């Protein structure tokens, strides 16, 4: 697609094939995998809702812990981060399950299964972890072979210089149209690079580090992450980062032309908004 658009050209194209078929398919599979992994992961977390630094669990000094205690006003949910305690009744620690307030770290509406069942949560988690890894490998191989990463995700020097302006434009909810919308803006590029090359690899490697069998095959993982419990903490933090990304990503999809975005992620076709002319910016 090297067609150079002349500003104000009367024959400016309107429809642009924004996402390649492979990106659309792997993105779709990834959406399903990540949602199920996050929810089954929270089920697994609920079995021991505390995180530690190091190889072993120092039960009296967790870095993060979600718990519940009985008070005169009923069950109180409490979230403890680095020694600071927050009342999180209703969401974390104590929340309603089948209409009754009960002890659970993450609430039933966000875990798979909704009821406490570690064994089943693990089954979901490992199945979709395999699927996510295989899907991710296909995406990576294609991204390298097709030069997708270099062409579309790697910001150019000029684009990096636009970060400040892009932040302002985003805050004002103004998004590029016309030819400028063909390319990811620099904030998108950085966010996607972070997700693809930092957060997902971290998820997978820290997940593997929690496996005692993998630790005997690749003990270097324990050194890399500073022990199994630190790996578990990083696994949780990276998952939180990905969840945060998804929220921002969805908000952006919603405010920057939701149907256009959805259409382009399903069919590939993106409406550049050129109703016969470009907007000449």
């Amino acid at each position, binding site marked *: 697609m090297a067609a150079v658009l002349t500003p104000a050209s009367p024959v400016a194209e309107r429809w642009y094939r924004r996402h390649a078929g492979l990106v659309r398919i792997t993105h779709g599979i990834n959406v399903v995998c990540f949602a199920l992994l996050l929810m089954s992961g929270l089920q697994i977390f609920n079995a021991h809702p505390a995180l530690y630094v190091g190889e072993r*669990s120092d039960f009296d000094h967790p870095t993060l812990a979600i718990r519940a205690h009985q008070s005169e006003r009923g069950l109180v949910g409490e979230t403890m981060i680095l020694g600071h305690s927050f009342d999180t009744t209703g969401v974390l620690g104590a929340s309603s399950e089948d209409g009754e307030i009960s002890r659970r770290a993450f609430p039933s509406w966000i875990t798979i299964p909704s009821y406490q069942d570690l064994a089943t949560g693990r089954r979901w988690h*490992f199945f979709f972890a395999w699927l996510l890894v295989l899907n991710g490998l296909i995406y990576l191989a294609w991204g390298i072979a097709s030069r997708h990463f270099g062409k579309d995700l790697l910001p150019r020097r000029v684009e990096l210089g636009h970060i400040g302006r892009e932040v302002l434009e985003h805050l004002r909810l103004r998004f590029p149209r016309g030819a400028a919308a063909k390319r990811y803006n620099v904030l998108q590029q950085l966010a996607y690079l972070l997700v693809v090359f930092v957060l997902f690899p971290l998820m997978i490697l820290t997940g593997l580090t929690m*496996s005692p*069998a993998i630790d005997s095959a690749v003990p270097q993982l*324990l050194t890399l992450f500073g022990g*199994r419990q630190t790996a578990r903490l990083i696994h949780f933090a990276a998952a939180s980062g990905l969840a945060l990304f998804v929220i921002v990503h969805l908000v952006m999809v919603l405010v920057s032309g939701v149907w256009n975005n959805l259409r382009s992620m399903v069919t590939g076709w993106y409406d550049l908004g050129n109703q016969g002319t470009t907007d000449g910016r």
Partner: protein
Amino acid sequence: MAGDRLPSDRLDRRGLLKALAAVGGLAVSGCDRLSNEPRFRSVLDAANSLTYRVQRLLIGADRLAPEYGEADISPAFRANGSTDPQDEKYLDLVGNHFADWRLKVHGLVEHELSLSLEALRALPARTQITRHDCVEGWSCIGKWTGVPLAAILSRAGVRPEARFVVFHCADTLDDGGAFGVDPESIRYYESIDLIDAAHPQTILAYDMNGKPLTVPYGAPLRLRLERQLGYKMAKYIMRIELVQSFAHLQGGRGGYWEDRGYEWYAGI
């Protein structure tokens, strides 16, 4: 202009969000239903057999689990599962400091064995400081001393048709005293394959942190299986049976927790 919306975007965003929430709700209840659907569970199970095969390739027969130093030992090792069995026979053994306890080795072996704690302690031992990973997510580090399982099995002589080693335990984790419940149907047991049984770190431990194993940790004898999760490491071992298949034992899935939905292979 840049601030304008495309005509299609005037469609109700709130409607879209509501629809998404409804789909989300359906998906969650759908996941619950799928979780209890045997055919779906066996699809999910395929991932576990894949994990087993890939991990077996990676760790082979004798890659060692990491070992730690004295300084790394957990000051308060968490005792989990049964910590104070109330089964009558076991209480009798405790009362007599396990003087009457014998480890029975039977099933598909050339010679049945019956070994006292003293006899076990007289055999060459291995000591290892290793990390214990619970399926719940926590880890503790402890020092274990015991007899390599391989030494016991070579004394007994494993018959060629044997494929698994089953550990029969003294404890019933559920309420063993519940009326109408046959304690034999809820007695703890576990099984491992012969590759793990031959692993140098697979030991029958009688000492923990330099002292005889106490009741919460599985006295008089427990399994250490360092490349898998804690629930595989049977405590209160009474007898070891070599079998071709564990289908005839209790729930048929090879272990107490396996019969309750957990994976037989617990390397992850």
